């Protein structure tokens, strides 16, 4: 039969020259024509072998990258740099993954090019950076061995007495440290502008300053090559996000200079632009559901099976489309098979939005009432462990699973209420805003004075003043608040004193509010014993005292996360409208009455809140309920990888043709971008260097 094969080699012929967004769109349309022409070509037949003989491959490329985010885009670019053809598959409608809404905080180190630039007191070549280095040269001076020791330092414990570096995979981290220099330079070479080194990103090591943030300069047009973004695309503070950047891009004047802005838009869009320019082909709206290996548990990985996963605006029904279209492959069939001649890269992200998976580490998190960061941006298939599970099904082993419990940002309670997507502050303007419906009310820690927090049955569960608390991670500049007995410059790697019991007793400061929040309650029933949603209850007096803005877009009366009522009894009824409010909040009236009596008495016998701040009655109508949404932000633990980012099987052997990185991989406790970007860089190099 005729093979419906489309060859990504044709991408060689599509090499964008666009500089502005408008030009890029124009060229994108042209590229779409090119892709369509390929549809009719028969091309070369695929050579499926062994148990995969029956597979009719629909597409073929040297490298299939699954997940076009923080780890995936570097692989794709690196592979194209090496002359390989690449199809990047992503379940979402737009590339970038969670990197797109990140803070673009990239901690590398070991004497990376930005450290060296700042040590020398230099600016960037474009002259955007007009502020002097933030750190003294000695605070950034290190070599790769020093970095490796820092990120595998067994002696460091954090303020929750967790050990963020002790369990890191050695081979993986040696390779990571070895490749920080190359990765930073690679990023700079692919349109990423970094500001001054400023401190260190969580779990990026304690002894030196290593973090640089990607930025763009405000300009008349959004132009990645020129390094500029318009005010509109960067977002208007408190008013709007944009299709370019789902979150308002923050002021970069401290790390770069006036009229600069930072966040994941500067990082993700830069890499995406470069990938498209270099001929990476993107098959968006396509979720990988299976890795295909020659034999179920042996042989090479030769491709993937992927299903169509379009997203539609819940308000208008209109399909969401990518910001840029250059290099997009239009494909709407339900299922396609994509053959990888050399390698498949699993860069699908983690498992934070898979309640079954994450509950392996903390059973209470099996409740789907608790979400993942970037839910609106990534949609229902984001961070769903699909890559990890697909790897497990063909024999891959896992690593670092226990590290999910080793950092403060994994399962936590963000301080943003009245939205399900509580981790981020997305404003209207990004196409996925409709999925969340509200930005949420962002609280400072002092604002908790004005609310009572209750669980699904309407009972308080912890001292509300602690809900805004979190313990810090051991990073620059160190010291007691970070869990280290000395400042970072004085930190002695591997010194037993860093974690002596006396010291741990002194600096331990973890609050257990998240554990209390998701504990079983009388509304929890077998078999899952879901804990259910949490609510902030407050009144008109709160708004008067603390100035909360409950107007749209901060709240919405349509998404079930914010209710207004004349009485507490009415509020109880309204809460049942929320999809995860499975039982009535039957104790709410009694709880508020009791709270008001505590205020009258000047004491909170339940949680001793009177010691922390004034207590206020909740008695002035109207009354409000805003969702408090626990979030599993990032995830740790995933496919075990080698120093070359190869996936390892249960016997400790490499699975040929399969690579992984970022949150789909395990064995590393470093948070976020630094880990993922280097993994992608390593994987890209490894694939290019593969023989055959």
């Amino acid at each position, binding site marked *: 039969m005729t093979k419906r094969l489309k060859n990504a080699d044709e991408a060689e012929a599509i090499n964008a020259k666009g500089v502005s967004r408008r030009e890029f769109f124009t060229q994108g349309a042209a590229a779409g024509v090119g892709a369509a022409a390929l549809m009719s070509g028969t091309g070369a037949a695929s050579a499926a072998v062994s148990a995969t003989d029956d597979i009719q491959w629909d597409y073929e490329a040297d490298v299939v990258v699954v997940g076009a985010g923080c780890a995936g885009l570097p692989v794709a670019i690196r592979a194209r740099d090496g002359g390989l053809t690449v199809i990047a598959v992503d379940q979402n409608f737009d590339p970038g993954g969670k990197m797109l809404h*990140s*803070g673009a905080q990239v901690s590398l180190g070991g004497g990376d090019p930005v450290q060296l630039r700042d040590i020398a007191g230099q600016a960037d070549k474009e002259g955007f950076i007009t502020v002097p280095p933030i750190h003294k040269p000695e605070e950034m001076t290190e070599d790769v061995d020093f970095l490796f020791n820092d990120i595998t330092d067994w002696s460091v414990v954090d303020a929750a007495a967790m050990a963020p570096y002790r369990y890191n995979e050695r081979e993986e981290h040696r390779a990571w440290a070895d490749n920080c220099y190359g990765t930073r330079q690679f990023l700079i070479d692919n349109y990423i502008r970094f500001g001054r080194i400023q401190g260190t990103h969580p779990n990026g090591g304690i002894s030196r300053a290593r973090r640089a943030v990607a930025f763009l300069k405000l300009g008349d047009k959004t132009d990645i090559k020129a390094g500029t973004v318009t005010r509109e695309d960067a977002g208007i503070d408190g008013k709007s996000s944009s299709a370019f950047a789902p979150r308002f891009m923050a002021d970069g004047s401290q790390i770069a200079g006036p009229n600069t802005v930072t966040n*994941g838009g500067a990082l993700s869009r830069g890499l995406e632009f470069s990938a498209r320019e270099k001929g990476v082909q993107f098959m968006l709206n396509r979720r990988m559901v299976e890795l295909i290996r020659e034999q179920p548990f042996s042989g090479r990985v030769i491709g993937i099976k992927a299903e169509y996963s379009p997203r539609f605006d819940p308000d208008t029904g209109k399909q969401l489309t990518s910001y840029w279209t250059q290099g997009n492959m239009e494909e709407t069939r339900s299922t396609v098979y994509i053959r990888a001649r050399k390698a498949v890269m699993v860069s699908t992200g983690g498992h934070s939005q898979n309640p079954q998976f994450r509950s392996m580490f903390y059973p209470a998190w099996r409740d789907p009432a608790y979400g993942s960061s970037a839910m609106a941006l990534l949609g229902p298939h984001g961070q769903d462990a699909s890559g990890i599970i697909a790897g497990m099904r063909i024999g891959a082993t896992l690593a670092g699973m226990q590290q999910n419990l080793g950092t403060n940002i994994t399962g936590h309670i963000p301080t943003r209420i009245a939205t399900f997507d509580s981790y*981020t502050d997305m404003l209207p303007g990004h196409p996925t805003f409709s999925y969340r419906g509200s930005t949420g009310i962002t609280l*400072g820690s*002092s604002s908790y004075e004005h609310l009572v927090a209750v669980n699904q049955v309407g009972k308080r569960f912890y001292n509300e003043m602690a809900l805004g608390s979190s313990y810090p991670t051991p990073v620059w500049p160190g010291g007691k608040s970070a869990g280290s007995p000395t400042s970072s410059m004085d930190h002695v790697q591997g010194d037993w004193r860093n974690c002596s019991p006396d010291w741990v007793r002194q600096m331990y400061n973890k609050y257990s509010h998240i554990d209390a929040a998701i504990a079983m309650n009388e509304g929890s029933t077998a078999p899952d014993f879901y804990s259910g949603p949490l609510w902030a209850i407050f009144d*008109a007096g709160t708004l008067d005292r603390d100035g909360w803005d409950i107007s749209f877009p901060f709240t919405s009366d349509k998404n079930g996360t914010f209710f207004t009522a004349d009485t507490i009894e009415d509020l109880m009824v309204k809460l049942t409208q929320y999809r995860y409010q499975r039982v009535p909040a039957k104790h709410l009236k009694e709880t508020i009455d009791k709270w008001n009596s505590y205020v009258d008495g000047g004491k909170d016998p339940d949680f001793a809140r009177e010691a922390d701040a004034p207590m206020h009655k909740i008695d002035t109508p*109207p009354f409000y309920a805003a969702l408090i949404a626990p979030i599993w932000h990032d995830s740790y633990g995933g496919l075990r990888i080698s120093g070359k980012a190869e996936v390892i099987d249960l016997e400790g052997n490499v699975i040929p043709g399969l690579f992984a990185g970022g949150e789909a991989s395990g064995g590393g406790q470093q948070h976020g971008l630094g880990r993922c970007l280097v993994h992608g860089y390593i994987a890209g190099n490894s694939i290019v260097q593969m023989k055959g």
Partner: protein
Amino acid sequence: MSVLHSPIHDNCTCTVDVLDGEVDAGHGFRVRASARCAQGCDLSGVTIAFHAPGGELATAMLAEADDDGGYTTDEVTLAAPASAGHHHFTATIAPSAEGLAHAAPPAAFEVAAKAHAARLNAWDLPSAIVAGEAFRFKVGVKCSADCDLAGKPVALFDTDQRQVSTAQLGNDIWPGTTALFFAEMAARAPVDAGRHEWTLAVPADEAGLPPHAAGTAVLSLNVVAAPECSVTVETIAQDGQTPIQGARVVMHPYRAVSDEHGIARLRVARGDYTILVSAAKHLPIRRDVTLTADLITRAELEHEPPPANPDDFY
């Protein structure tokens, strides 16, 4: 060859599920009807009629067959009678457009209607009331079915159930609410210092249509002895050394709010206190004092940085 149908299909069934429990008299309640033809007719699009003793209440069409071959309507909201008690209804299958009748016993169902509940709430009550002195506060009453309560009486009873004050709910509803009628009440505090729990009450109107049940709420009074000392707290922003307006100063049970000069004044009895001071966008502070004379003190509050967006750090 055509199949001739009898104009009447006997032994059909019709049932109704009442989806709500007890409802407010005169208020809506939800039902869903199901039907099945003994001869297996497709009943989708066939009408179900809901009847009260006085006549037809509503109709609804049966939807497509479910997995079990039954046909069900969407949820239908019917109005309960305005009186309290158990009310009985029936539902029947209406003849199809082709004149085919599905004979089924009328499906009987009932709903329990109750008197509307009165929900009371009091606010703006002074946190400390000097023994024997007059005080004022607001009381709001909301009907569970959002009825107009303008002119309804509210009474205040002391610990011994003696009526000490009355008021009538006004014609307006409280700003921001949909049906909370309110009044301002005045009363005189007991002469004994300490906590006193009085009772606010609205009487029942059982004979009304719809009927309304009585409602009560506790009014908790902190009655204090005559103040002996004055406390002046100057609230200052630590960074700019500027006065903070609207700062809360609490010396339980006394409370005050700072003015435009950052000054909060309290009149309190002698004794041991914890002074708690807080203000929007500032971190709260506390100080323990033993008060034997007038006190003038200064509270410097540290500015709380704008809430950090975790994505800017992680």
